[in-house]
């Protein structure tokens, strides 16, 4: 772990001048972004703008070619691996729902719980009432109580989305990265998800990527629009959505 002597920023998440290219294709270009503690930020942007890639960088899946990525003002995320980053308290929901298909919904949550993740810890683990209650709570929230014993693999697409959100809740990280949480949800569910995120935001920092403008509007938070791997516009939803460039490349006329 690399701990710098002094905090250089108050932001919980701080990206500066990040570049990534894949075989010559520049997916992220000089991207800079800061997320204050407790903030919720909505990220929008055209398909292929680099939103998911940005999350890959933050969570250690992709190493940037250059640039700074700081967590909590002092930890250089580019030097850490996925596990370490998760341990620091960064949780992620993937765009394509990824759950442990051959384990039950319940076990998926159990695995996500933010408890001792060491080999020793899990080997000598014994379930506690607290954990069980937490799992029940999460199941309640994501409305998967009825299917708690089902294998995650047999859930429908939307149910998997919910389960992944549930895992994120169980993980209880400081920073939540949520990639397209309402894709494939009904309008009602979209609304519920927005409420859920707002609630989570009370004591967590959240970054959420979505294309559903209604949903983004409902969140009512600062919006960043990415385009070709860099920030195109930032501001309230109204500011951003009235930006000509944003309309041109993203919203359409």
């Amino acid at each position: 772990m690399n701990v710098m002597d002094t905090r250089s920023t108050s932001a919980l998440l701080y990206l500066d001048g990040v570049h990534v290219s894949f075989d010559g294709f520049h997916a992220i270009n000089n991207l800079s972004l800061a997320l204050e503690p407790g903030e919720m930020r909505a990220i929008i942007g055209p398909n292929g703008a680099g939103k998911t890639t940005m999350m890959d960088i933050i969570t250690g899946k992709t190493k940037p070619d250059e640039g700074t990525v700081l967590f909590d003002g002092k930890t250089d995320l580019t030097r850490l691996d996925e596990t370490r980053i998760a341990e620091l308290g960064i949780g992620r929901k993937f765009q394509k729902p990824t759950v442990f298909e051959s384990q039950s919904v319940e076990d998926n949550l159990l695995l996500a719980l933010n408890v001792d993740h060491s080999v020793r810890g899990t080997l000598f683990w014994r379930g506690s009432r607290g954990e069980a209650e937490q799992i029940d709570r999460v199941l309640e929230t994501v409305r998967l109580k009825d299917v708690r014993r089902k294998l995650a693999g047999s859930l429908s697409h939307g149910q998997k989305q919910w389960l992944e959100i549930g895992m994120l809740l169980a993980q209880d990280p400081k920073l939540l990265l949520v990639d397209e949480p309402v894709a494939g949800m009904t309008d009602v569910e979209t609304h519920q998800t927005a409420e859920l995120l707002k609630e989570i935001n009370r004591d967590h920092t959240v970054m959420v990527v979505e294309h559903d403008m209604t949903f983004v509007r409902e969140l009512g938070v600062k919006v960043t629009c990415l385009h070709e791997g860099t920030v195109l516009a930032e501001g309230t939803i109204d500011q951003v959505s009235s930006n000509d460039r944003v309309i041109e490349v993203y919203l359409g006329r």
Partner: protein
Amino acid sequence: MMPHILTRSLDRAATIFVLVVAACGVLIPLSNLLLPAGSALQVPTYLVALWGKYVCYAILALSIDLIWGYCGILSLGHGAFFALGGYAMGMYLMRQIGTRGVYGNPILPDFMVFLNYSKLPWYWHGFDMFWFAALMVLVVPGLLAFCFGWLAFRSRVTGVYLSIITQAMTYALLLAFFRNDFGFGGNNGLTDFKDILGFNVQAEGTRAALFALSCLALILAFLICRAVVSSKLGKVLIAIRDAESRTRFLGYRVESYKLFVFTLSACMAGVAGALYVPQVGIINPSEFAPGNSIEAVIWVAVGGRGTLVGAALGAVVVNYAKTFFTSGVLAPYWLFMLGALFVLVTLLLPKGIIGTFNFWWDQLGSKRPNADSAAREDGVTEPKMAE
């Protein structure tokens, strides 16, 4: 071991298994020793030796199932750990020969004398002491597995890539052990053992004791495996098997988990090898042959991957089939039969013997959730070997 782990580990199937093995471990030696030879119930010595061998194979199969069935690590070189354990025990047994070797050399084993060794190679020192050899039975395979795994898991070598480098490992060891100058008796290996802990290895009592000991080792290995897979660690292993990178994003240090089970499994394989050698009477480099390791994987598949009991059962069934088919009128056709057995098991019992049995059992009973075995019911969760 903490009691809650034990209780958690011993579900009904596990209890039955432990009891059956324990019964065999007690009754077979007793029948062999106490009943008069030739009586209907007496188990002849050659069967004791034979079954002893099966039991050792069963331990090896368990060790493979632990990593393959639960963590998706397909080792095609597990025979190497088995053989290393065997060699460690073989070295002890060689040193016990003392002056009874054909050249009567008190220090050097026979093969060293006729290959003109003037003194014992350094790595043979200490093997005259049982405790040291016993330690080495665990340490050598364990250390190799640890180093190998440390490299491979840290570099995130997975799937076939891992399988093939384990195969390369055992193949390299095969070639190395073949060499006379490697100091382990070359192709002829270590053989012509006399005593173990002062008892004649060929005596019926010793054989019976070794058999009982092997059963005990099987039970222990089984309990350890059960303890591992029924703990939360077991769930993490399955998570790694099915979605390794997702597990990382939850904050699990995947390489530590893999390293832990891989090393544990190698130690178990080493113990199996160590028990095997005195019962079979020889250890030679062919135990490192990649084909042997593949076969061991196949025992697991036949019995039912990811079921532990199945692995042990598979080892016994396949090897019994081999014993049975290679004698008598069937001998010329035994490869057909064994080959057909493998093909048919794959086609008709896709989850192996125990896996299929569990499946029927679940179908019969209610839809009891059984994440371990039900996992494979839809065929959706097979960890991908090749992309």
